């Protein structure tokens, strides 16, 4: 009965954690009265829901989907059309409830498309989801009446007259409140789902579909149900996007959007419930902050992603979890000097690489990309890219960084392995 006590404590801790996050989410825009921050937070809130819904498939059921944007996009389009239909006759209350409609739209899309895709798992599922995604994206261009063609569909989230307890959703801050409320509800619901028989059997199907069949479960049915539910939450996220930006284009349901949510979720960590939250926050911030600084942002993003796949396939959440385990075992202190030691050469290496990439971009990307001054701005130096000097410097820095990283990184790795084996030794 020991487990019961710890269970209760854990639950109280969890409540505190949830409450803390909610309070933080509401406090942030009040503390910094910045329009930019509010817009950023709105985007983060939406992406958190989207990424969590994606991880219901990838992390929890083991389904790698390349077409998740379909459900997100369906939620967005249906919401936008509903918004336009209710128009003048609506009320802020109906607007506030639209994400539910979007969610149902995503769910319906899941019912129809999931029937085809979830017949298979594994690689075949990945390919089929890609094909279905392309099919829907191609359809979007074929039916401009519904999908709005190139220009998309737009609307106005302030409908009818009057307000709901003083809210019209017009100002961005009010919109943010709506997003936080929905994101919070959706997150709680998705977490609760992981604690139900279906949620647990999804894990079982992910781990070992054959065994799941031999304890009485139809794996195809489990995958199908999870996809439908995941479609619902993706639809909620899409709906929030539609209300937030007041425009939906076919971009929302194409392969690019599907790719971004996959990257976010993976980078955050698919093995933990909170992983996608970290991923959504990090990638959205990077997208907007780094994206505002350099045109090469997508290139950095791609490199970062490949780095994560090769070095930390469990994502950021797993790195955090390992540090926490080290901390609990009293081994964390031992690793700190190693982390600090390896940080320096990595920074040197990064500086060299960034220099090379930025200079290449400035030189090669040519007109229309704002080339020419990008590199000089970022590095706060006036560089003459037609002379060998800066190139040699950048290559030199990169080479030195690489050599140092290899040298010191080797020691860090050894220390790391030693710490890990002590950790697992303790456990066994």
């Amino acid at each position: 009965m020991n487990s019961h006590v710890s269970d209760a404590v854990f639950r109280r801790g969890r409540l505190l954690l949830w409450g803390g996050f909610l309070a933080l989410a509401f406090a942030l825009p009040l503390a910094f009265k910045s329009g930019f921050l509010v817009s950023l937070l709105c985007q983060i809130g939406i992406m958190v829901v989207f990424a969590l819904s994606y991880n219901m498939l990838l992390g929890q059921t083991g389904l790698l989907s390349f077409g998740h944007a379909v459900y997100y996009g369906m939620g967005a389009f249906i919401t936008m059309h509903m918004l336009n239909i209710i128009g003048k006759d609506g009320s802020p209350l109906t607007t506030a409830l639209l994400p539910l409609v979007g969610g149902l739209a995503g769910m319906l899309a899941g019912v129809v498309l999931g029937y085809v895709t979830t017949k298979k798992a594994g690689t075949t599922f990945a390919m089929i989801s890609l094909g279905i995604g392309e099919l829907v994206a191609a359809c979007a261009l074929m039916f401009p009446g519904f999908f709005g063609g190139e220009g998309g569909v737009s609307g106005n989230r302030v409908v009818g007259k009057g307000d709901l307890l003083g809210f019209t959703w017009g100002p961005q801050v009010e919109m943010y409140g709506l997003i936080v409320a929905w994101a919070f509800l959706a997150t709680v619901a998705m977490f609760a789902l992981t604690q139900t028989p279906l949620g647990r059997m999804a894990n079982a199907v992910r781990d070992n579909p054959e065994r799941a069949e031999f304890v009485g479960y139809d794996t195809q049915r489990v995958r199908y149900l999870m996809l439908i539910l995941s479609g619902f939450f993706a639809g909620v996220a899409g709906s929030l996007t539609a209300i937030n930006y007041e425009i939906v284009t076919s971009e929302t349901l194409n392969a690019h959007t599907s790719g971004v949510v996959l990257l976010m979720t993976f980078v955050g960590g698919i093995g933990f419930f909170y992983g996608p939250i970290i991923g959504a926050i990090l990638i959205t911030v990077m997208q907007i902050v780094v994206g505002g600084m350099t045109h090469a942002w997508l290139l950095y993003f791609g490199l970062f992603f490949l780095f994560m796949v090769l070095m930390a396939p469990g994502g950021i959440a797993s790195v955090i979890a390992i540090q926490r385990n080290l901390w609990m075992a009293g081994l964390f202190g031992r690793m700190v000097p190693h982390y600090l030691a390896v940080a320096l050469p990595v920074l040197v290496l990064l500086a060299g690489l960034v220099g090379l990439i930025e200079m290449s971009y400035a030189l090669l990307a040519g007109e229309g990309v704002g080339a020419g001054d990008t590199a000089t701005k970022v590095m706060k130096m006036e560089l003459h890219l037609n002379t060998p000097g800066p190139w040699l410097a950048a290559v030199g820095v990169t080479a030195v960084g690489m050599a140092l990283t290899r040298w010191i990184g080797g020691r860090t790795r050894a220390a790391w392995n030693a710490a890990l084996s002590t950790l697992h030794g303790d456990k066994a």
Partner: protein
Amino acid sequence: MSLLNGITYGLLLFMLSSGLTLIFSMMGILNFAHASFYMLGAYFAYQISTWIGFWPGLLVAPLMVGVVGAAVERYGLRRAHRFGHVAELLFTFGLAFLVEEIVHLIWGKVAVDYRIPVELDGTLFTLFDTSFPIYKGFMMLISVGMLVALYMLLTRTRIGLIIQAALTKPDMVEALGHNVPRIFMLVFGGGTALAGLAGVIGGNAFVTEPGMAAAVGSIVFVVVVVGGLGSLGGAFVASLLIGCIQTFSIALTISITDVFAVIGVTLPEGSQVARLTITQLAPVLPYLLMVGILIFRPRGLMGARES
């Protein structure tokens, strides 16, 4: 005429899907970045053609792509392999993303002027008032040549026999599996080189732009699913089938209403579906075919394996 065009396009698709199938059968990796190598082939060939002309590029560009592919296998995939199939798939996915960005970086975001060489510019023959360009004939020649070479390689050489064994008895080779990393590297390099060659001859026939990989990539996946995962014969049939569907449907301008009128059904006027022409439907036809196949014949046309 459409048939010839369809076969040309289908053969091009097969150059891509055969490499994809070989890699999948041997290594169990679905190479998401396969079409990126196709794109690299086109861009390399373009670059070489601006320096020393088209003909050297025809030979050099695929080789370069193959070397890049082998390097990717050696230094990237082999590492990702340790973390399982999902990591491998994600690695190739990230790679596709990266290749597109690098292409943006080096060659810009708009299409480059990769032209058909003057020697091949012109009409081969004219049939029913439509002309068949020499270059299409050249593409067919190269594709068929490559097909024959591939066939010879598979049936007459030792490596070919091992690859064939892998196609029919994947478990057997899995047992050998990790002892043959060099063959894996060769297959991956070879498969990507094939994709590169397709890029060299396809890039100037269609268009060489950063979006070309994404455009062709999903079609190639459809081909592989329709043909049956891991089946070279299936990939061949499906390539031709989809090549022809694509070219035929573009040439047809009858609308859905007309189609239904033939079978005696009148669709309500003004509905959007009714006004669509087959041409407008062209982009979705391959995907519809795929969905149909999945529902009625999940193994694919000639696939032997269930999943």
